């Protein structure tokens, strides 16, 4: 029997090609993902392990500088890491050296004034020379380190990117106006941030402190232990020297930092790996349909042969096993090919990333044993499991079938049971989804998730039933446009509903995901867009490109700019309000009316200037607040007070649930976190005002001056980027679906050889035959895509229902143009998939085909 199985594989090489390709692509995706993420993770951890080589203990102040988050900043006490702290630690018996580090965002402009590199990856630090004038951490390759204000040193990569030489004037900026400084030196470093393409600017200590922190303050202290002193012991010794402010200052040993770093890298790569693997498994799942379909078709074609085996004495078990062995052989061969291809993909990705120069660390290719095991196992299992049902069906062929002279298995098992199961699943799923969506909040997520899964499975089970009416809809059009070939194509497409369904399902899966993402993207994008821009009456929004805090100089400078009718900083503080810490947005009460357009559900904003608060509708509902009620507050300095509610406004994304006058905030926090500056122009929005605002920010390349449209564009860009990535990852499953269409068509052409021969004999020309096959392909593809698009819209609608509470004003937006595009593309996919089968069909020899055997 095994020999028969092997012979069968060899005899049907051509017909199994697409199946093998589908398995191969799926496993290649899995293996490629694993190889790439292992390689990437290894390179990252290698690179980062260097960064803490001379660190025994590090003391960090997370609230220092522009990189601190708003919450850390508002919760900080007055304590800081100062020269005194550094000296105290340096004087400890176990300390070999203690180094005060100043760090913070520092952007460097190229010669055209644009930011070099990414804003999140641009940093500044202090050059800390020893007595010899050198800093071992940053060895100067050219020139010397910065010694005074208006002197800087740059890392080699950044200097090369912009073409800066020692002696050039370079514009640098943190979160305030930019500074023109002289480049005194260029250094090399193995700092992983720089190695990975970041920018590092060195200042002398005083300048760094002034620019990035406050004079005399450090963001961290790096302590090196004397030989013989353990890291933990040193950390214990350092602790008393660090100012006490709750647990604000973090004291960590080098080992802890390394472990933490390794964990971060591992988490980062593993979440990337998980995401990629999800898409790889979607591809494999799509492959299942194709494999099952292929074996079903092969067995149908071999009915006589298998019946003969049964007639001469093979048992049912043996027939099943022979089919499974066939699947095993294909699975094994394809998985090995897939594994090899996957390793190739991993290497290719690495080379690609290296070539693009994103500055990702590089390292040797890692092919873990796990990768090999998983890829092979997954490939073989998927193939064999997919062939299981067809194999069992093969065993049910009666021996007497060997004697019958039927051309094709015309008897089709009734779909009644299948339809009943499908209807129950789909109906139950839809009901669950509808229920979940109606909850309007997080609690609906479980029913929606479960219901969507059930509905999807139900619809897949029902696809054969759906194929007839749906395809019948396009029937008249096909007949009108393409005559007889069109009519025949339509009928061929619904001829074997199971086969059509299995072929279309592969596309349906991909299209469901693609359109769900698209609708979600459009809906969320639209809601965020409306929420942000509807509340913004101002003409301009000024903010840091990397989302960090602005220097207080920025709002001050903008207020002085001519052409500005009104402006205000938007600040963010976290105070204890009522029962817990809440985020508060600060705005200048006097200009609030000109900058914000809030919809009040009750009360008004009139009290804002009198030290009263505004709350959003959600908070008002949950805390039963109405205009006139009061809310207790605990300030950062632990004094207490209370605020009266002036008005309740409709929730929007730009503001926190609580809004307060900046003047009121300043009473308790002299240096609050500034997120944005809103500007209303005297003459509305104008290009000249935009330029004036840019000038007011001191031409800082990292500060963006955005109009409402710019804000919208930025949001849509983020969503477009995310969508494009999803499309890219789903492309693989669509490719596999295309293989499925090719496969089904090729098999159908083979099975309908006689009919094609007859059609040719009675006068259908080659073009007509080609058109017939192509149209069948297009019909099946568009059918699969249509069901997918509808399902996708439905799923997106359901998910939106569960997010209503978290995103204000979320409504389902269906981008009809994109949906139409997807359907058109599916039609194109059908055309492409039919290319080879149609060609083959049109070249069939007439006499050969109609020959009765």
């Amino acid at each position: 029997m095994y020999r028969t199985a092997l012979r069968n594989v060899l005899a049907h090489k051509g017909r199994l090609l697409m199946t093998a390709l589908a398995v191969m692509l799926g496993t290649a995706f899995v293996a490629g993902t694993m190889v790439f993420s292992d390689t990437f993770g290894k390179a990252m951890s290698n690179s980062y392990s260097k960064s803490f080589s001379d660190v025994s203990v590090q003391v960090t102040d997370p609230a220092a500088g522009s990189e601190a988050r708003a919450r850390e900043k508002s919760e900080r006490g007055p304590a800081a890491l100062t020269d005194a702290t550094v000296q105290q630690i340096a004087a400890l018996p176990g300390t070999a050296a203690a180094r005060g580090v100043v760090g913070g965002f520092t952007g460097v402009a190229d010669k055209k004034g644009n930011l070099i590199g990414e804003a999140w990856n641009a940093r500044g630090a202090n050059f800390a020379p020893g007595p010899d004038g050198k800093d071992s951490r940053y060895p100067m390759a050219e020139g010397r380190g910065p010694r005074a204000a208006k002197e800087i040193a740059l890392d080699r990569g950044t200097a090369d990117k912009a073409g800066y030489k020692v002696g050039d004037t370079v514009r640098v900026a943190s979160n305030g106006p930019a500074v023109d400084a002289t480049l005194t030196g260029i250094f090399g470093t193995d700092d992983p941030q720089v190695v990975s393409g970041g920018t590092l600017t060195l200042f002398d200590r005083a300048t760094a402190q002034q620019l990035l922190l406050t004079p005399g303050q450090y963001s961290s202290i790096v302590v090196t232990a004397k030989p013989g002193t353990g890291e933990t012991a040193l950390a214990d010794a350092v602790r008393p020297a660090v100012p006490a402010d709750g647990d604000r200052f973090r004291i960590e040993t080098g080992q802890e930092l390394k472990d933490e770093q390794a964990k971060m890298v591992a988490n980062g790569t593993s979440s990337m790996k998980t995401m990629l693997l999800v898409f790889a498994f979607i591809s494999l799942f799509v492959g299942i349909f194709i494999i099952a379909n292929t074996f079903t078709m092969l067995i149908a074609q071999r009915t006589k042969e298998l019946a003969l085996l049964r007639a001469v004495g093979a048992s049912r078990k043996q027939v099943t096993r022979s089919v499974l062995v066939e699947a095993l052989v294909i699975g094994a061969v394809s998985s090995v090919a897939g594994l090899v291809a996957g390793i190739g993909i991993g290497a290719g990705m690495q080379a690609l990333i290296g070539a693009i120069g994103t500055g990702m660390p590089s390292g040797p290719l890692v092919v873990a044993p796990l990768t090999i095991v998983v890829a092979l196992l997954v490939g073989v299992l998927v193939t064999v499991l997919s062939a299981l049902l067809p194999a069992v069906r093969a065993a049910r062929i009666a021996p007497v079938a060997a004697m019958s002279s039927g051309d094709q298995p015309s008897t089709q098992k009734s779909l009644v049971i299948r339809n009943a199961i499908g209807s129950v699943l789909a109906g139950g799923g839809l009901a669950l989804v509808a229920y979940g969506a109606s909850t309007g909040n997080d609690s609906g997520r479980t029913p929606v998730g479960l219901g969507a899964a059930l509905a999807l499975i139900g619809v897949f089970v029902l696809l054969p039933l759906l194929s007839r009416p749906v395809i019948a809809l396009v029937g008249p059009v096909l007949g009108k446009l393409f005559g007889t070939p069109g009519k025949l194509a339509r009928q061929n497409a619904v001829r074997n509903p199971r086969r059509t369904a299995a072929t279309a399902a592969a596309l349906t899966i991909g299209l469901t995901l693609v359109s769900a993402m698209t609708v979600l993207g459009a809906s969320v994008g639209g809601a965020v867009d409306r929420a942000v821009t509807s509340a913004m009456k101002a003409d301009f929004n000024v903010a840091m490109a990397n989302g960090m805090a602005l220097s207080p100089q920025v709002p001050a400078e903008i207020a002085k700019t001519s052409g500005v009718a009104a402006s205000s900083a938007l600040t963010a503080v976290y105070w204890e309000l009522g029962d817990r810490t809440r985020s508060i947005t600060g705005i200048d009460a006097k200009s609030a009316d000109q900058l914000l357009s809030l919809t009040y559900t009750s009360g008004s904003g009139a009290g804002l200037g009198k030290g009263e608060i505004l709350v959003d509708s959600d908070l008002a509902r949950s805390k039963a607040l109405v205009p006139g009620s009061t809310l207790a507050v605990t300030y950062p300095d632990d004094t207490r007070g209370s605020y009266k509610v002036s008005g309740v406004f409709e929730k929007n994304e730009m503001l926190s649930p609580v809004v307060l006058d900046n003047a009121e905030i300043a009473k308790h926090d002299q240096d609050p976190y500034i997120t944005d500056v809103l500007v209303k122009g005297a003459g509305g929005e104008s290009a000249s005002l935009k330029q004036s605002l840019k000038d007011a920010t001191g031409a800082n390349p990292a500060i963006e001056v955005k109009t409402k449209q710019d804000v919208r564009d930025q949001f849509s860009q983020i969503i477009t980027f995310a969508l494009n990535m999803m499309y890219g990852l789903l492309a693989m499953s669509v490719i596999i679906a295309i293989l499925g269409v090719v496969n089904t068509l090729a098999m159908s052409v083979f099975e309908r050889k006689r009919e094609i021969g007859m059609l040719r004999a009675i006068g259908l020309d080659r073009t007509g035959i080609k058109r017939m096959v192509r149209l069948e392909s297009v019909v099946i593809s568009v059918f699969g895509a249509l069901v997918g698009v509808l399902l996708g819209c439905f799923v997106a609608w359901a998910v939106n229902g569960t997010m209503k509470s978290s995103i204000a004003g979320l409504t389902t937006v269906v981008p009809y143009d994109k949906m139409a595009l997807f359907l058109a593309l599916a039609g194109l996919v059908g055309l492409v998939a039919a290319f080879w089968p149609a060609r083959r069909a049109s070249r069939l020899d007439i006499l050969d085909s109609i020959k009765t055997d």
Partner: protein
Amino acid sequence: MTTTTATAVRTGQAAARATGLNKVYGEGETRVVALDNVSVVFPQGEYTAIMGPSGSGKSTLMHCMAGLDTVSSGSSMIGDTELVGLKDKQLTQLRRDHIGFIFQAFNLLPTLTALENITLPMDIAGRKADKQWLDRVVETVGLSGRLSHRPSQLSGGQQQRVACARALASKPDIIFADEPTGNLDSRSGAEILSFLRNSVRELGQTVVMVTHDPVAAAYADRVVFLADGRIVDELLSPTADSVLDRMRRFDAKGRTS
């Protein structure tokens, strides 16, 4: 008796005519001559049967004359159109508009109804069927009540009648039937054969039928005998007995020579 007998000028115009037709397969040692200088005329309004033992070339002759196969040399005409040298597209059109086919295995499209199968050649050509003619054809083959049935709902005899109606529906110049009764029981076979004869007598059609069954051949006006790729004899107004008799003589001749 020579091969020239079959080419003797007959009354009526030729619906199809072959002159000096040769068909050779393979090269060198494997060279097989399927047709050896065959000349034959099928006059309009006549029912001709082509007979001969297996491998005599009767099917090949039909395929070559129907534009389904190419010839090695010679000429083959349908009406006034020379088939040799025609491109695939032109041949396809010629088959569509001027030739009807009936196959042994019925060869109906399972997805189409009986009526749709019958009008298929016209549908392909994008022509409307001649309603009157179509009704007459359908009535003659006795399918009136079953036009909306699909082939799987019809018996073998009924399916072959659909195939006959399809061949007739477009009023072709000539109908080629390849063992039309090969897959049928004798009663259904007889129905088909009388139907073919009626279509010649009453509808004025021209039918050429390949068969190896003397009973079937007896329905024809004329029987042309082929052996080893050559036309060896012909018989007018045949009966089953006379055909069988001729066949036996060939067999005997073949064994003694």
